[in-house]
């Protein structure tokens, strides 16, 4: 699966090195201004540097079999998800992408008759046994396919998570809300509309609000299940841009129906078919030199 020039060499890293969630620094503009090299040069330097960059494994999926009643939706999935990278799940409808991503923060627990064997490790800890489920979901946040802001105002939506996890003081809440909205690139748009009902926002704003809501609890991993499938191209582009910015501080797993989207934003891509993980590799390898014929067919648009 790995060609010689693939870089992410998985390095087992001491957990004490785990970086805590760092506050956002709005330095994108500064970075662009100071860059007086051409994009090509920039790309070259980035590529040159890549092999040196160690990746920390944040999530490990080991021999995961998952059943809805007697129907097996996932078959022996083994996958490693690296920290501060965007991992994309692609594959035709019904192949189990949503099922797998929901397993990562145990949202499948809510479904009657759903059970699994195998293990999912978050920083080496079994998420089924080693951690309280609510704490797990605080650390592994989720953005859903359909924007689902609560029927309350913008502020309360974003403050919901922090309040859930015990932040009470008004000043602290204000700060958390503002920070989350800034991180989701939504603050300027909504700072005067904090008391407005969130259901009155546009679809794209609603989805970014859901991202802000998820960011407000300062997760380490953000799961996104086709977050742009219900949105127009402009909103989609904004969210893609945002996701790429977010990976500096977060590990992102994104399910997408849209192969261009996976190619544009992800570092690693996993291709699924009928509940099986067919191939997982650096995104450019998946698209440029897939190892499996079925992957090749799919990325070439020959089925699905």
């Amino acid at each position, binding site marked *: 699966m790995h060609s010689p020039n693939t870089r992410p060499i998985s390095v087992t890293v001491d957990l004490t090195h785990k970086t805590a969630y760092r506050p956002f620094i709005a330095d994108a503009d500064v970075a662009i201004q100071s860059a007086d090299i051409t994009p090509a040069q920039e790309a070259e330097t980035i590529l040159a540097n890549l092999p040196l960059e160690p990746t920390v494994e944040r999530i490990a999926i080991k021999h995961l079999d998952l059943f809805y009643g007697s129907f097996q939706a996932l078959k022996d999935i083994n996958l490693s998800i690296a920290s501060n990278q965007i991992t994309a799940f692609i594959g035709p409808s019904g192949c189990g992408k949503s099922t797998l991503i929901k397993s990562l923060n145990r949202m499948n627990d809510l479904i009657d008759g759903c059970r699994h064997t195998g293990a999912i490790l978050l920083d080496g800890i079994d998420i089924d046994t080693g951690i309280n489920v609510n*704490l797990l979901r605080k650390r592994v946040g989720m953005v859903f396919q359909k924007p*689902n802001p609560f029927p309350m105002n913008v502020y309360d939506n974003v403050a919901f998570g922090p309040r859930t996890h015990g932040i009470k003081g008004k000043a602290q809440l204000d700060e958390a809300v503002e920070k989350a909205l800034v991180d989701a690139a939504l603050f300027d748009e909504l700072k005067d509309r904090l008391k407005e009902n969130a259901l009155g926002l546009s679809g794209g704003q609603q989805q970014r609000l859901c991202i802000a809501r998820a960011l407000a609890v300062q997760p380490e991993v953000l799961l996104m299940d086709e977050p742009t499938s219900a949105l127009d191209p402009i909103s989609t582009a904004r969210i893609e841009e945002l996701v790429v910015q977010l990976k500096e501080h977060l590990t992102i797993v994104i399910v997408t129906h849209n192969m261009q989207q996976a190619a544009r934003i992800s570092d690693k891509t996993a291709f699924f078919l009928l509940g099986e993980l067919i191939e997982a590799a650096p995104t450019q390898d998946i698209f440029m030199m897939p190892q499996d014929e079925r992957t090749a067919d799919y990325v070439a648009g020959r089925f699905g």
Partner: protein
Amino acid sequence: MSQAISPTINSRLTRRTRSRSIGAWILRLLVYLGALLSVGVLLFIVVYILIMGIPHLSPALFDPVYNSTNVSLMPALANTLLITLVALVIAVPLGLGAAIYLTEYAGRKNRIVGAVRVTAETLSGIPSIVYGLFGLLFFVTYLNWRMSLISGALTLAIMILPLIMRTSEEALKAVPDLYREGSFGLGAGRLRTVLRVLLPSATPGILAGILLGIGRIVGESAALIYTAGTVAEIPSGLFDSTRTLSVHMYVLASEGLHVEQTYATAVVLLLLVLIINTLAATLVRRFAKG
């Protein structure tokens, strides 16, 4: 559809359509007649009561104390509000709690859920006099609470419990799963999800159910005559007998001595029920809109 059909089949079709359309026409006529009749009867009753009652709405009718000369409905009105309040204080937490348990805690395939649901459905079909009989046997006689505010209120609470439970359940079920996922996905527990996300969304539906329950209580007499009694005074405690507005009307009507005041009382009762039902309908409409 008809392009490819041969002329013979086509004419046969038209014939059949025509005979069917006559049937449909008759059916429609019957439906209209039925609707007209029921609305007509209802309108007649309401108008009749208003005509008979409004001229006799005298200030004496609203005296704070009842006696056989003023036939005041004031104590009964106060008692109605009082007994409604007590019944709701008992029935709402129980009904709402049961609904929350059934929709949010018990698994979808849980046996208890099915059993409770069937029981609730059966209970809501039982005539109120049966509840009255139960209240008489259990609260009044067995627990020896006599005919009292508390016996009546408990009987009423049991009577509206299935209604409150069912409407609350429907209201909770109508809250989109997206909200549940959103809340759980942020690490909120079940209780927090229920209290902070689901109940606020379901409130209009739940309130509508409560208002329907109030409507039933206000209009109820059969379940109260032998449980709350007929004393036309504001009770000084939970164990005193009370007479609600409906019971008051029943007593006046059966005595036959104060026909005019009976109609006037009916007007007040009618207005009360009308206000409650309008409120309920408004809430239901708001709820349906989301």
